[in-house]
């Protein structure tokens, strides 16, 4: 997916035409709300729409899990292990006789919501720090970037393992570790974007109009770096989803019996020969969710750049 990041999708180009036709005679009427149009545009881009639908459907299922799950995800029924899909158990049961469908729903809650929250948290911290460093420059920049350099010198996963090793396994510790280690790459990228945007004539023009540094940064600088950051956000959220699943798979994240896609994959591993479908379900969901985030990111990038419309 990432290699497509620089190319506008054909759907985005198609969109320009229909968009033009839709807004002909509005002379005089102030069309002041670019944000309201954003969703419309996103929906018209087929790739983005697919991503949006995937993320929203999975998100809705996860959010509504307590109401739609037919069973308690941790209720065991050892007499009904490895049950095949039936009316009572739409996707069958796992090695402890727990309802697979309910576990997937509740697992999505942990996987999706955690990775989404973490991805967003990392984005906010990284963007704030990167903008500060790039915009302030000088000593602030030097200091912040040395910290970033030091943290970047370690692989992210190593930092996470160190933190989890020190604090013990568990979702809260894992989340804290990802938050602490993840913002640095954002900060570096955002700083670079800000440094480049800072040189643009429109920044000088904004300053010539007497706009204060905060206004210049928020209204003129950030909107011009936001597109790559949003793409990065979706990519990183997809990565986080995979990383969380991987660490849970390794037993460092979610602890049994709490359902989580990665942990479920791990539990299903032992019964691979007997019930391979138990690995397929969470595996497919992880893949589809990661794909959804990536597609959404692509579409958002196209929509956020007014020049590509």
């Amino acid at each position: 997916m990432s290699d497509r990041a620089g190319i506008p999708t054909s759907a985005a180009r198609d969109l320009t035409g229909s968009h033009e036709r839709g807004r002909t005679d509005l002379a005089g009427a102030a069309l002041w709300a670019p944000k309201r149009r954003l969703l419309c545009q996103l929906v018209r881009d087929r790739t983005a729409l697919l991503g949006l639908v995937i993320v929203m459907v999975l998100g809705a299922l996860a959010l509504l899990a307590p109401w739609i799950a037919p069973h308690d995800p941790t209720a065991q029924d050892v007499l009904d292990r490895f049950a095949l899909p039936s009316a009572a158990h739409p996707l069958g049961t796992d090695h402890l006789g727990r309802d697979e469908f309910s576990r997937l729903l509740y697992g999505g809650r942990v996987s999706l919501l955690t990775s989404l929250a973490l991805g967003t948290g990392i984005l906010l911290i990284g963007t704030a720090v990167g903008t500060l460093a790039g915009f302030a420059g000088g000593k602030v920049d030097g200091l912040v970037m040395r910290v970033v350099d030091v943290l970047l010198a370690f692989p992210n996963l190593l930092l996470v393992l160190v933190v989890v090793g020190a604090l013990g396994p568990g979702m809260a510790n894992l989340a804290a570790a990802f938050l602490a280690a993840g913002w640095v790459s954002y900060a570096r990228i955002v700083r670079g974007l800000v440094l480049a945007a800072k040189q643009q004539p429109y920044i000088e023009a904004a300053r010539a109009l007497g706009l204060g540094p905060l206004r210049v940064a928020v209204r003129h600088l950030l909107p011009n770096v936001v597109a790559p950051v949003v793409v990065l956000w979706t990519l990183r959220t997809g990565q986080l989803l995979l990383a969380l699943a991987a660490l849970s798979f390794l037993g460092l994240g979610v602890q049994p019996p709490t359902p989580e896609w990665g942990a479920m994959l791990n539990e299903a591993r032992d019964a691979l020969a007997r019930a391979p479908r138990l690995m397929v379900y969470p595996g497919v969901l992880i893949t589809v969710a990661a794909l959804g985030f990536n597609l959404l990111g692509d579409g958002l990038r196209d929509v956020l750049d007014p020049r590509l419309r």
Partner: protein
Amino acid sequence: MTGPLLEVRDLTVAFPTPAGLIRAVNSMSFSASAGERVGIVGESGAGKSVAALAIMRLLPTPPARVSGRVTFDGTDLLGLPAGRMRRVRGARIAMIFQDPVTCLSPRLPVGEQIAEAIRAHRDVTRRAARDRATQLLGDVGVPAPGRWAAEYPHRLSGGMAQRVMIAMALSCEPDLLIADEPTTALDVTIEAQIIDLLIALTEERGTAVMLITHDLALLARFAERILVTYAGGIVEQGPVTTIYDHPTHPYTWGLLQSVTRVDEQRRRRLSPIQGVPVSARAIPPGCPFHPRCPHARDLCRQQVPHLTVHAADDHPSACHFAGELPRPVGRRGDGP
């Protein structure tokens, strides 16, 4: 208000480089009165733009070293704290630039950008600022301003973008507008429209304008007073008719003779000024123009001429021999 609106005294801007100090502006002095249209003309590298940026305090210091005095409406701008300078920019002195399309933030609708400029100085609601922005777009001649206000800058033509820039610059009713080559990126018909628009709008509001350009023909149309710059300093200044009809500095003659004229009776070869503009890195001793001046004498090579009114003339000129030199024949460069 007593005295001029803007008074610049000995403004010097230097940039230290490994190869030595570059003096982009070299003790430049001039003034502008309220409501006056002043033209600053000179070749590329004469320090016009740098002087304007220095007045606006938009040059990053360091590396730039700015000295001298810039008095605006009785306040010394160069000594003003950053926060108070910000309240001068846009509200009291506004600036427009050469390439209007790149001066607009690509991801904000243009109306939003104008509203932003208003809200930077006026305590108004977003709604009111937007209404005012739409109204301003109408004032600068944008058709269907309500529609164009929602447009992103890349959809605008150069002329349209410059109109938006002008709307933005005039949004807070500044006393002085500095226009740095506002029409260089535009074609001639649009240039004429923009210049007429600038004249009309600033006359209406009593805004003083400092127009920086290398185009003398443009200034003939626009300016009331002309400052001729060379090597970071002013070499001659005076009312527009004086500069055109009897200039006294050989550089001004040279500039005037390099302009083609369609109303000229005789066929004439254009006579460009010999040589290349002096490098700000190595300004020659004496008169900075002497290496290119056909009338240079020993005195010119030794002593720096100052901008003074010479006995034989009526306006200031920085030439030792102003009023004494034989004037070139055959064009408007000659005397009355």
